[in-house]
């Protein structure tokens, strides 16, 4: 890594062990970051830890859950020592069920058109604006995009959402599900999410002699001279922990 330049963008410190170090200080404020990964590799844990750290600093945080009901999500994250349900009770972490939001917007249909997408973006940004959210997680954007029938509309949706949230000064993690087959050239299910994101973080598994080992890799992060190496991760009671993957074991 080369020494830094004189100008350094303000950072949103993630509080995740090792993450801020490999990002050289954190995620640049207002970025929209795609967190793409295979099942069980720690995407939701990472998103929640990012919010908890912000909430402990007094920031208003929001989590939109589309893959599981909020009750189940909260039950699952309560096993972690870093999580404090008091942050939810006190309104610092606001958890929204996408199903409930869609019902409320009259969007309980199988496919979304342009107007539906605009309504959804407006609802999310209104919530962010009203509460003053500075950290947002949408888990998962893949589930939302399944209802959007074309790549162009998905691109419009994510671009408009990212732009609106950045204008509000909100740093956003868009969780995306990828299959192990998707890995390689594409970092997302639809192939368009990655193009409009300021950052791409990949979580996945490496098999070593029949054992799956989780890893994380920052492929892209605009505004910071980050590491692009692969790191092993473990989901500990204290949250995500990472260490550089052995070079001879990275294949």
């Amino acid at each position, binding site marked *: 890594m080369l020494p830094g330049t004189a100008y350094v963008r303000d950072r949103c410190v993630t509080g995740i*062990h090792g993450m801020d170090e490999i990002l050289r200080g954190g995620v640049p404020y207002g970025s929209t970051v795609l967190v793409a990964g295979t099942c069980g590799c720690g995407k939701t844990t990472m998103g929640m830890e990012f919010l908890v750290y912000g909430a402990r600093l007094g920031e208003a945080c929001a989590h939109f859950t589309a893959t599981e009901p909020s009750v189940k999500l909260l039950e699952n994250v309560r096993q972690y020592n870093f999580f404090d349900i008091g942050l939810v009770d006190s309104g610092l972490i606001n958890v929204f069920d996408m199903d409930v939001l869609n019902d409320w917007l009259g969007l309980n249909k199988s496919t979304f058109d342009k107007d539906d997408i605009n309504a959804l973006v407006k609802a999310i940004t209104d919530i962010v604006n009203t509460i003053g959210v500075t950290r947002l997680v949408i888990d998962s954007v893949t589930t939302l995009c399944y209802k959007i029938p074309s790549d162009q509309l998905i691109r419009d949706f994510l671009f408009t959402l990212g732009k609106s949230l950045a204008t509000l000064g909100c740093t956003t993690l868009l969780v995306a599900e990828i299959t192990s087959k998707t890995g390689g050239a594409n970092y997302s299910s639809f192939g368009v999410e990655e193009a409009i994101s300021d950052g791409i973080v990949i979580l996945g598994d490496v098999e*070593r*002699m*029949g*054992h799956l*080992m989780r890893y994380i890799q920052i492929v892209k992060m605009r505004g910071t001279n980050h590491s692009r190496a692969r790191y*092993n*991760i*473990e989901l*500990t009671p*204290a949250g995500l*922990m*990472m*260490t*550089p*993957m*052995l*070079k*001879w*074991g990275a294949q």
Partner: protein
Amino acid sequence: MDVDPRIGDILKALSINSSVQVRHGANNAFDIIGSVVRPLLLEFGLPGIYISASRAAIEIIDALMEEGIDPSPMHFIDLVSTSTIGGTDVSHTNISFIDSPVMLEAIMLRTMYFQRARPDEQMFVILDSVHALSIYNEPRMLAEYIHTFVNTFRHRNTLSILLTIPDQVAPEVLSNMDLYCTELIDRGDLIIG
């Protein structure tokens, strides 16, 4: 278990960020373990992490307790017992298990996790043993791991002790231990007592 007091004397003279290679033979492994652990726990009062790759952690605990050494200030990371169904069914709360000795980074993460819980304490880490890890890992990867292991704990101001039977380890691994460890204690097949 016969304790060699000279090992304690050598350890006493070291700084906390030292990395010590302890070579021993096939017949004196338990004597060497006792000779290393006893001064660390009973004389220096240091808490520590014991990575057991040669034999199940419970076996080490039992052997130490028989010698009147309370192993409770140590957390054991056991790489052996998951290879047996029922092997992880133990009552000790200071043992955690890793699925396989090939998951070298997981060992590092687990030790870092336990250190994170006690950030202000000086600690030691014992790797028992390099020759056991060499059964499962390619020499070039194990050599890289030794390099990372030693440097990580030196950076974290942690005393690291690597046990090995040298003739069971590939030359490139052994030469890495010689290069990066700051101290060598060689007891060969010496029977103590």
